[in-house]
């Protein structure tokens, strides 16, 4: 093909391909996904920007080490099917990762194209290409079921069906082991379903990925709260040879300020679970209610805060304030998410911190009191420490408040498993290469080990754990 003959200089001259997006004014009135995705022509053009450099910093930056140069080259050649195969060797959930991975901090960060053009924004858009290939494959109908090795007679229990659990399910099943996934909720996917909103990750995609796993022979069991219905020891007694614990983020944290138990104050987990998993956006056609808000305050600066703020807009709020105690550049959320929230009209109250919530006589939140902050010297995290400015308190009228400042660990499994070691925050301690815990036969990964992290880091731990589980089931060595 013609593109192959291009010199690196010529490749660098191809403009970065942008995905079309729903207009912000339109999209705050619907739940449809914001970006439309590449056309095949755009995809080929974008993939052509790759220099096929020998060092491939992109692969080193990917937590699951996808062979990125190969799949980009396959896209250039129009071999979309081949590209899908390449990705799926190490990543079973490309349609999800293509959408929610922080590529700008991972694969795209080290990209030579971005470096040459002096901005990571102009790196090869690997994430968008990954999404394109995954969507293309889904459009072709049922994905090919990966080859499953001969049955080994070994059984693996996976606790939790979020990104870490699903990754392990696929990788362990491929080796010929029987796999059962126990999910506490009535639907699979964990945070992919209850947490990340439809407009960022369509639920049909997650359900398709789970169906693919079921087609591989993975058994899904819902409404199973492990720790309560069965302890880990009971799972071993039932004949499971290894267990992977991936129960995810746990109890939501609150600010510990006055008024946090007023009506109308939610954790982001609750707000998003009502809206996403329980479909409260369709109330009263569906049965789960959610606040009908005019003025909403969201506390926090991460992706979950952005998801909450943007969900509140879509549920009809007139004003959505995002209160964050540092400045915009310190926000842990992805740049793209902050940008989308901004475009949609979320009002950023930066360098401000809530100090208390004020309620009315019936116990409903009616105001928040915030204090202005300034940035001082860098703290342990390397970010400049926000300091309150004396006597700068002010109040804002609100009727709903969403606290999105993270989660502490869930106690159900550690409490019912005395020989499972946890750290002082209650997270399960696991070896960072094998994900082995202190209890023989038990591996753990994802947010129950990491604290709050990302989908791809959970999947990365899942891959490590799966390799170690497969090894353990082969030789029995702990």
């Amino acid at each position, binding site marked *: 093909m013609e593109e192959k003959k291009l010199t690196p200089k010529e490749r660098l001259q191809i403009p970065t391909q942008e995905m079309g997006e729903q207009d912000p004014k339109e999209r705050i009135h619907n739940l449809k996904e914001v970006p439309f995705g590449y056309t095949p022509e755009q995809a080929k053009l974008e993939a052509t920007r790759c220099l096929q450099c020998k060092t491939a910093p992109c692969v080193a930056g990917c937590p699951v080490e996808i062979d990125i140069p190969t799949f980009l080259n396959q896209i250039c050649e129009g071999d979309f099917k081949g590209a899908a195969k390449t990705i799926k060797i190490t990543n079973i959930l490309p349609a999800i990762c293509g959408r929610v991975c922080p590529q700008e901090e991972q694969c795209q960060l080290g990209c030579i194209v971005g470096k040459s053009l002096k901005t990571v924004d102009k790196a090869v858009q690997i994430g968008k290409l990954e999404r394109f290939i995954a969507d293309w494959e889904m459009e072709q109908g049922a994905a090919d079921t990966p080859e499953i090795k001969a049955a080994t007679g070994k059984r693996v229990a996976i606790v939790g069906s979020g990104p870490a659990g699903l990754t392990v399910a696929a990788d362990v099943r491929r080796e010929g082991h029987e796999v059962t996934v126990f999910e506490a*909720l009535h639907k699979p996917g964990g945070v992919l379903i209850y947490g990340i909103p439809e407009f960022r990750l369509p639920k049909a995609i997650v359900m398709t990925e789970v169906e693919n796993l079921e087609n591989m022979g993975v058994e899904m069991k819902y409404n*199973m*709260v492990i720790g309560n*219905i069965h302890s880990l020891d009971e799972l071993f007694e039932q004949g499971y040879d290894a267990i992977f614990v991936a129960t995810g*983020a746990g109890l939501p944290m609150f600010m510990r300020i006055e008024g946090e138990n007023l009506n109308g104050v*939610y954790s982001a987990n609750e707000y998003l679970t009502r809206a996403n998993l329980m479909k409260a956006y369709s109330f009263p056609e569906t049965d789960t209610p959610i606040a009908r808000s005019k003025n909403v305050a969201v506390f926090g600066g991460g992706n979950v805060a952005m998801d909450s703020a943007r969900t509140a807009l879509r549920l009809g709020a007139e004003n959505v304030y995002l209160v964050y105690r540092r400045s915009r550049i310190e926000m842990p959320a992805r740049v793209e998410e902050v940008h989308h929230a901004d475009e949609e009209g979320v009002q950023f109250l930066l360098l401000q911190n809530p100090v208390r919530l004020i309620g009315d006589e019936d116990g409903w939140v009616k105001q928040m009191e915030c204090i202005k902050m300034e940035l001082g010297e860098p703290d342990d995290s390397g970010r400049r420490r926000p300091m309150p400015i004396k006597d700068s308190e002010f109040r804002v009228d609100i009727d709903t408040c969403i606290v999105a400042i993270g989660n502490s660990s869930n106690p*159900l499994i550690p409490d019912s498993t005395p020989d499972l070691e946890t750290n002082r925050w209650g997270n399960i301690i696991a070896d960072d290469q094998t994900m082995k815990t202190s209890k023989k036969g038990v591996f753990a990964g994802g947010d129950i080990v990491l604290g709050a992290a990302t989908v791809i880091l959970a999947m990365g731990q899942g891959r490590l754990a799966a390799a170690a589980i497969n090894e353990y089931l082969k030789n029995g060595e702990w």
Partner: protein
Amino acid sequence: MNRILEKEFISDQVFRMRVEAPAIAAKRKAGQFIILRTSEDGERIPLTIADASAEEGWLELVVQVVGKTTKEMSMLEEGGSILDLAGPLGRPTHIEKVGTVVIVGGGVGIAPAHPIAQAMKNAGNSVISILGGRSRGLVIMEEQMKAASDRVMITTDDGSYGQKGLVTDAIQKLIDEGLKIDLVVAVGPPIMMKFVCLLTKKYEITTLVSLNTIMVDGTGMCGACRVTVDNKTKFVCVDGPEFDGHCVDFDEMMKRQRMYEVQEKESMDRFQS
């Protein structure tokens, strides 16, 4: 899965449902609850387990029709099934021999009080149960409670059955009789639990209450169920459902229970029309 083995109305608005759930039945302990969902677009509601048989593999739920979900559930019949059923959830009641235990059940709260009475009796306690309701029809499970107790007292607000008055009058009567009460366990409407606790605090009688707050996941993830206990925020689903009644902020809890009053009514009106 979750087949409905029996269903009957035991009063106007209260029905009893026996559901096949062998794994939960084998595992549940007194004081624990389940979360269920009856339809694809349905909400998740917590219900405390009223009775169970590990041998026969069933759970019994006693439910008062208060909104759309309970109404819809009341229309399910024997042979049908519950779409989703998860449990057992929450910490079990701490059961030990303490001496004389007074179990107070108010209205549909008598149902969750039943397994606690059974377990307290099996542990060797002398169990006195006080069953209260607004009127005769709301005093349920009298026979089962009699079987689990050494003595049963009944009060109704309107005097249509038992002693006219409130459950607190019956507790006061026991105190006035000179009975040494070692523990009170109260399950029922928040207002009832609040007044039981005010009374027992006066006499310094340890009192446990079982809270039935709004929940979504029931496993600690959402925090919808939070209550203030001893000035600290607790999650009913994983820290409870039982707490030291003398430390619970019932006024806050009652306000939180009304969070979705408007939507609940709307949902019910829509369902009925």
